[in-house]
């Protein structure tokens, strides 16, 4: 890539790239983020390349490989342009048809189209699919327009124009002011006002100022940051550069979660491209702004998502948080003023600069501006990443976008905020989603995981799940967190094993108070939330476990038995074959039975039965 050493050259480069694009030329877009790759997208791409070559179409039809476009349930997606036809769950064996029928014959292949489960109608265009229709994809939508490994693609859609704008005409103080006025709040968890953070960091004295992108996305069930870094790394970097300019920093770090190899690869590649063309380094775009970024991979510790722990990890230490009597904006990385923001927060910055405060603040609610990307997962039909305006209701997200509950279950709760958040009951489904309303309901925004739970999800088991997670991930520094989460886990475990006692709920509440009050960092302070919120809304489930030794959702192994329904059993013997401990007996074509003493409640028989004959009682 040639050097871009002035504001004019950036604009000229953009015009050159746009000039090379032939709007008439057909192209095929294939998603290939982590989710799509897990479904075999790389083989699909390979097959398409070979097929185009075979048909003599190489060079006549372009292929664009993008990151995830959100609709993970239907990966890999293949979009044929300019007709804009979306094919879903495409397999290598479908490629020959796509080339011969759609690309050469201009015919639509019905079987690969999205089919509305309710109406049975097929949908041709991406934006007409209900999953996409109700979204406001200002940040995440660009994933579908670019190859994340191509700087040209990013520049073509207006990339680095926000950076150019601030370098050309906006002073650092004014940039801080714009971000303050935009009402942008941190997308990583707490929701602290970003502009105020920048201002404090800018004003803090120090030899050097640092900016950090927190990509240590550890909340289980949340992967928005992975989606952005994999699919559009430049948008995050551009945000960091604008932040660095505003704060007066010349060095930045991206701390990427260990489990995200593709995100690391793409962001490292993006940084290398920028170095080569002079968009990172000294005198960026011919101005006196200098900036460089390093990528650091985490070590698989959840606690490193906490800002002071992350900085300790960057310094090559164990990731233990410290007390924040002095904030990191004053004394952070290597004791210098450091501004840390989450991936999605950084990606909002170029949008605010480009579109302006007035436009940005028109989206969202009083206290929560802009959009939020959620990972809509669990017992929902359309799993994936969705970007919606703040203030949208849970119902709209779960039903309009998510298509409702998967299987034949009933909505029981939505879990937000990961291990720091809580479960919101189905009765609050019309609640608007913003920072403040979620906190009032006993949960929190967190980074944006939204896990849908149905009547087959046991809320005591969920509380135990999170407490197990937290006791393992507690760094051990504070006694209340280290021992308290362990004790809470033990109490919850006893309840799920049928050994719950009267007074256990009160004991959990008391321990919650101690853990929250006595711990230094947010991990401990918010650790009780999953327990307290499930007690608040689902106390009857706790009581059923404790008093009646019964798990209403049929999950807790010690409290359930499997049995075979006389009416539904056909005696096919499938359950008998899959049972790993030979607990099932019965002759062919006769009713089978399960010996409860031998049964290990692994669920294999239930999953294998084609006649819905295995029941949990």
């Amino acid at each position, binding site marked *: 890539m040639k050097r871009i050493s002035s504001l004019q050259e950036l604009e000229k480069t953009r015009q050159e790239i746009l000039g090379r694009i032939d709007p008439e030329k057909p192209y095929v877009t294939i998603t290939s983020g982590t989710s799509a790759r897990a479904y075999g997208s790389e083989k699909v791409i390979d097959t398409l390349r070979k097929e185009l070559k075979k048909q003599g179409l190489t060079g006549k039809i372009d292929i664009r490989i993008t990151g995830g476009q959100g609709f993970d349930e239907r990966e890999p997606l293949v979009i044929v342009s300019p007709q804009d036809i979306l094919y879903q769950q495409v397999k290598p064996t479908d490629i020959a048809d796509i080339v011969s029928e759609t690309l050469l014959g201009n015919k639509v292949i019905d079987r690969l189209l999205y089919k509305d489960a309710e109406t049975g109608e097929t949908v041709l265009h991406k934006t007409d699919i209900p999953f996409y229709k109700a979204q406001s994809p200002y940040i995440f939508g660009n994933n579908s327009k670019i190859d994340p490994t191509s700087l040209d693609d990013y520049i073509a859609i207006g990339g680095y124009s926000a950076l150019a704008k601030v370098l050309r005409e906006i002073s650092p103080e004014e940039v801080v002011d714009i971000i303050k006025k935009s009402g942008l709040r941190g997308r990583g968890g707490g929701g602290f006002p970003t502009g105020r953070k920048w201002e404090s960091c800018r004003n803090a004295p120090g030899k050097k100022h640092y900016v950090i992108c927190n990509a240590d996305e550890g909340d*289980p069930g949340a992967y928005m940051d992975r989606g952005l870094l994999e699919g559009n790394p430049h948008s995050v970097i551009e945000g960091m550069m604008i932040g660095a300019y505003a704060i007066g920093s010349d060095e930045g770090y991206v701390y990427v979660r*260990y*489990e995200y190899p593709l995100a690391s690869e793409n962001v490292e590649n993006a940084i290398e491209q920028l170095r080569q063309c002079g968009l990172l380094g000294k005198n960026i775009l011919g101005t006196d702004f200098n900036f460089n970024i390093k990528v650091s991979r985490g*070590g698989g510790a959840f606690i490193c998502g906490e800002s002071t722990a992350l900085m300790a990890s960057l310094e090559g230490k164990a990731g233990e948080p410290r007390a924040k009597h002095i904030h990191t904006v004053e004394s952070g990385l290597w004791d210098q003023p450091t501004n840390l923001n989450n991936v999605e927060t950084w990606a909002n910055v170029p949008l605010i600069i480009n579109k302006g405060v007035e436009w940005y603040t028109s989206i969202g609610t009083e206290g929560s501006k802009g959009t939020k990307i959620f990972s809509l997962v669990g017992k929902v039909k359309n*799993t994936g990443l969705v970007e919606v305006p703040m203030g949208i209701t849970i119902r709209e997200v779960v039903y309009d976008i998510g298509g409702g509950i998967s299987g034949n279950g009933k909505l029981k709760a939505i879990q937000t905020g990961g291990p720091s958040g809580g479960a919101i009951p189905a009765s609050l489904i019309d609640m608007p989603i913003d920072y403040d309303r979620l906190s009032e309901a006993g949960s929190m925004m967190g980074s944006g995981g939204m896990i849908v739970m149905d009547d087959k999800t046991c809320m005591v088991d969920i509380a135990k*799940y999170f407490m197990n997670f937290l006791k393992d*991930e507690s760094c051990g520094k504070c006694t209340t967190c280290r021992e308290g989460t362990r004790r809470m886990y033990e109490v919850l475990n006893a309840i799920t094993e049928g050994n719950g006692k009267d007074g256990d709920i009160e004991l959990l509440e008391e321990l919650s108070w101690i853990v929250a009050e006595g711990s230094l960092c947010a991990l401990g302070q918010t650790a009780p939330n999953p327990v307290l919120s499930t007690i608040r809304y689902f106390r009857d489930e706790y009581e059923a476990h404790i008093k009646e030794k019964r798990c209403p959702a049929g999950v807790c192994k010690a409290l359930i038995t499997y049995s075979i329904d006389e009416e539904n059993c056909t005696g096919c013997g499938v359950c008998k074959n899959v049972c790993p401990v030979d607990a099932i007996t019965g002759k062919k074509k006769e009713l089978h039975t399960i010996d409860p003493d031998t049964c290990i409640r692994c669920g294999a028989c239930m999953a294998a039965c084609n006649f819905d004959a295995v029941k949990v009682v």
Partner: protein
Amino acid sequence: MSLKGIDQILKKFEYRESAIIAILQEVQEKQNYLPEKDLEHISEKLPIPLTRIYRIASFYNAFSLKPRGKHIISVCLGTACHVRGAPMVLDRLKLELGIDVGEMTEDGLFSLETVNCLGACAMGPIVVFGKEYHGQMTPAKVESAIKKYKKTSKE
């Protein structure tokens, strides 16, 4: 790993103390775990006390101080996988392999591990064999997957 190989990695990171996590990651990548003698060598060369290296290697989940199997089986225990039945899949893997999480089978073929979330929630429950993702896992599918890996390892 050869001491020369470790020296190359140290050189790449300019013997920076603060790069210790990245250094350990690269050393581990080559052999699946961190042998004691390698850590002693790093400690001498950097130089930082072995106790500090041990603290880091034992603090971060990514590091293993014990040898790991040829195939590392990771079960995703993210919330989405959990509500879709990941614990049952994990239980079945323990039963089939005869080992607990963090252990290696006697033949050195498999190690069983868990991961907090892979961020591929649409496919849950997910089990990763080496680098190969298996989505929508059930206890029954576990058995056939293990058989397949045992067979390919013998060939």
